[in-house]
């Protein structure tokens, strides 16, 4: 059996931690996601935090804003960690789906997360 994917959420202020907490509360799945905040970080420090969270595991890095330091840090690291993909615009729906589908490849999981995340957006 291949190694299950790990998710790393990189976001502003306390958002990543709150998302991990919410996913665990709803799904009961613990340990599948790691939170990283960009608070107080320059580029180097943020990349160190993200790399530490990835910890050489295959997975998906979820970031909040495409227009942000979290996205840039994740994309810069991606070249050095081939088993990791990056998805921006993280939302709760895509994370809840991700934790139950961690037997896919990183590329498949990233594509799936993007689709699920978009499908979760609706209005009236």
């Amino acid at each position, binding site marked *: 059996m291949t190694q299950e994917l790990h998710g790393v959420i990189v976001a*502003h202020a306390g958002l990543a931690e709150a998302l991990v907490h919410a996913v665990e509360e709803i799904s009961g799945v613990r340990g599948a996601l790691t939170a990283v905040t960009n608070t*107080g*970080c*320059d*580029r*180097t*420090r*943020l990349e160190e935090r993200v790399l530490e969270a990835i910890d050489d595991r295959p997975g998906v890095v979820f970031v909040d*804003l*495409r*227009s*942000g*330091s979290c*996205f*840039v840090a994740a*994309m*810069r690291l991606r*070249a050095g960690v081939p088993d990791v993909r990056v998805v921006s615009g993280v939302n709760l729906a895509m994370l809840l789906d991700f934790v139950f589908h961690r037997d896919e490849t990183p590329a498949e999981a990233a594509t799936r997360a993007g689709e699920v995340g978009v499908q979760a957006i609706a209005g009236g």
Partner: protein
Amino acid sequence: MAIALCRVDDRLIHGQVVIGWGGPLRAKLIVLVDDAVSGNDWERDIYSLAVPKGIDVEIVSEAEAEQRCPEWSRDARPVIILTADLETMTRLVRGTGGLITRVNLGGIHHAPGRTERLRYVYLTQDDVDRLRALEAAGVAVTAQDLPTSTPVPVSELLG
């Protein structure tokens, strides 16, 4: 239109710049002045991806920035100019003959040899000397991470 914002921020293009300042200033052009990023196609692509639709981005070397600053100062679009550090911004101020009269310190984070002046401003002694020189040259330098924060004059940072 005068340049809307000249900012020193070691995170370069990121949320506070694009959204926090870009929104209220209605910025339509972000100029990133950075020799390392401008000289690397892959890095340029990543930083360009971080800029939303509706805002143009130019990633240029210091030399190109010195040449093109007059053009940006006449641009009809509100322009934000970014550098990663004070050293680059100081050279740009000096090299552009008075076109840059205000400098915003938005993010100079902790690193060895830097002392905390504000939560988001840590300075080396060389940085302090650069700020004193800018002040002496009549450049208005303030620290302000976001438009909604209170600007802190450089004199308060230097004590």
